[in-house]
């Protein structure tokens, strides 16, 4: 019994840490522009598929290197590519809608999402690609009956490192201070000498870089990649951001991990709880039930209060 629980906690942390990394991208853009960038999930997909192509390219060009080198190469190509896509998206689509009614950028975001998926379909085709298992997926037993794979450990470790780096950037650096100032008031930030267009572009770039890593981690964990693979993690990460309190960095991280844990634990027990009526493929309902409950009692999300004027 306790093994199932521990196992599901580990699985939940893996999924949750990826949600958290993606949720940060949603929440940063929302914090600075009040925009829900529905295309953010598709950046995750672009990251996974770009890494895939670069890995296959390098394996062909220089065979026989240690697998981790191919993996790192994939990441190092995917991150700048996603950053460029994120930047282009802001520059070409959202910037000119900065002062438009709220609905216009939202619809545009959905359009950008379709556009990215269509482009990906043209580039990578409609089929599912098997993802090279460069980081071992052989389970290691940590307790009797409780397993963790190296790729899971890497996912948690890398996500934690990225989150820490982002928190340091936002809370401790001049750039982070300018990001927070811009999020609070574009006009006043401009009066302080902040080029707010640059700060907003950087926010998209940073969020997209995080999404690239998340995409590679997701594909490495599941062993497949596909042009529409960004949709589900995108929706889940958005849910996580709302759960934690959208616009709030700590909220996105807590929301992501909480959502991952709820899903995993729910998936582990749903069959027992419903006497076999529902099975683990219904795990998604937990996320949304919990989201509903949280929003009824705390409309600003778990940590949403922190964005209030008086902290």
């Amino acid at each position, binding site marked *: 019994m306790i093994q199932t629980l521990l196992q599901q906690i580990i699985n939940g942390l893996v999924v949750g840490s990826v949600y958290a990394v993606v949720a940060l991208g949603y929440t940063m853009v929302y914090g600075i522009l009040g925009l829900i960038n529905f295309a953010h999930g598709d950046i995750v997909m672009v990251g996974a598929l770009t890494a895939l192509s670069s890995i296959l390219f390098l394996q062909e060009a220089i065979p026989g290197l240690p697998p981790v080198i191919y993996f790192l190469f994939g990441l190092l190509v995917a991150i700048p590519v996603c950053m460029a896509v994120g930047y282009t998206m802001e520059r070409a689509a959202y910037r000119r809608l900065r002062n438009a009614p709220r609905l216009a950028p939202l619809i545009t975001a959905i359009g950008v999402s379709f556009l990215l998926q269509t482009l990906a379909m043209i580039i990578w085709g409609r089929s599912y690609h098997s993802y090279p298992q460069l980081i071992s997926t052989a389970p290691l037993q940590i307790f009797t009956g409780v397993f963790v794979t190296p790729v899971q450990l890497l996912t948690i470790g890398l996500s934690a490192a990225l989150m820490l780096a982002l928190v340091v950037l936002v809370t401790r650096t*001049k750039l982070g*201070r*300018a990001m*927070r*100032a811009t999020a*609070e*008031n574009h*006009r*006043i*930030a*401009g*009066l*302080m*000498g*902040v*080029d*707010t267009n640059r700060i907003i572009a950087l926010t998209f770039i940073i969020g997209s870089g995080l999404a690239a890593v998340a995409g590679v981690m997701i594909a490495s964990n599941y062993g497949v990649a596909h042009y529409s693979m960004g949709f589900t993690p995108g929706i889940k990460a958005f849910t996580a951001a709302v759960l934690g309190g959208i616009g709030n960095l700590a909220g996105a991280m807590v929301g992501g991990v909480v959502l991952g844990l709820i899903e995993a634990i729910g998936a582990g027990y749903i069959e027992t709880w419903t006497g076999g009526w529902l099975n683990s493929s219904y795990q998604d309902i937990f996320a949304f039930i919990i989201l509903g409950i949280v929003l009824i009692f705390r409309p600003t999300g778990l940590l949403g209060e922190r*964005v209030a*004027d*008086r*902290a």
Partner: protein
Amino acid sequence: MLIWGAPTMLVKDVSPLLRLRDVKIAYGQIQAVKGIDLELHAGELVSLIGANGAGKTTTLNAIAGTLPLAGGALTYCDEDIAALPAHKRLRAGIALVPEGRGIFTRLTVEENLRMGAYSRSDDAEIEADMENVYRMLPRVKERLAQVAGTLSGGEQQMLAIGRALLSRPKLLLLDEPSMGLAPLVVEKIFEVVQTVLKQGMTVLLVEQNATLALEFSQRAYVMDGGKITLSGTGEELLRNPKVREAYLGEAV
């Protein structure tokens, strides 16, 4: 009350630091400023007074670059700055303490001050200037780690001024710094204005408290309905019956 001491310089053969020529500013179809001329010379304190809705804030915002011109010319240091975005004007030396103070309420007091120095990279000098601001505004220093949204109105105004000074501006634009503040705090603010003028800064002051502003200013402009209706030295305007009636609350 302190009377502004420096004599008015009457002969100006040098070109002005800031010059507005037939400046028009509009909000959509509504013209808020309908063609004004205004000049500021280096080292001057000039005030802009006028009734509510006259267009004073609009004018300051257009000088600082947060509102576009609908017509006319804006030159600063002999350069046309009408097309420069606000952040570049700040870098060129124009700092605005906006109406309502514009404090970043979620940042700490210290972070707000450091935002003022955002455009600078001379770290040692920034620290020295921070110390200067603390000396000038001791109440700010006691609250450095506090979230700025929790400051009192007067403290926020001090913070807003200190923050603007940290950019080391040549031209400081103050939009109703005394609004809603107790007389002692107002006096403190005018002391600070006096100090920065001594350091060679140029100040354009918008004030509801016209008596105070005119007493301190070398020159002043009176604005009404989007136009400049009167201008002159502070003393002249203080003596002007129209001004006394309309802005100093006196029956003539």
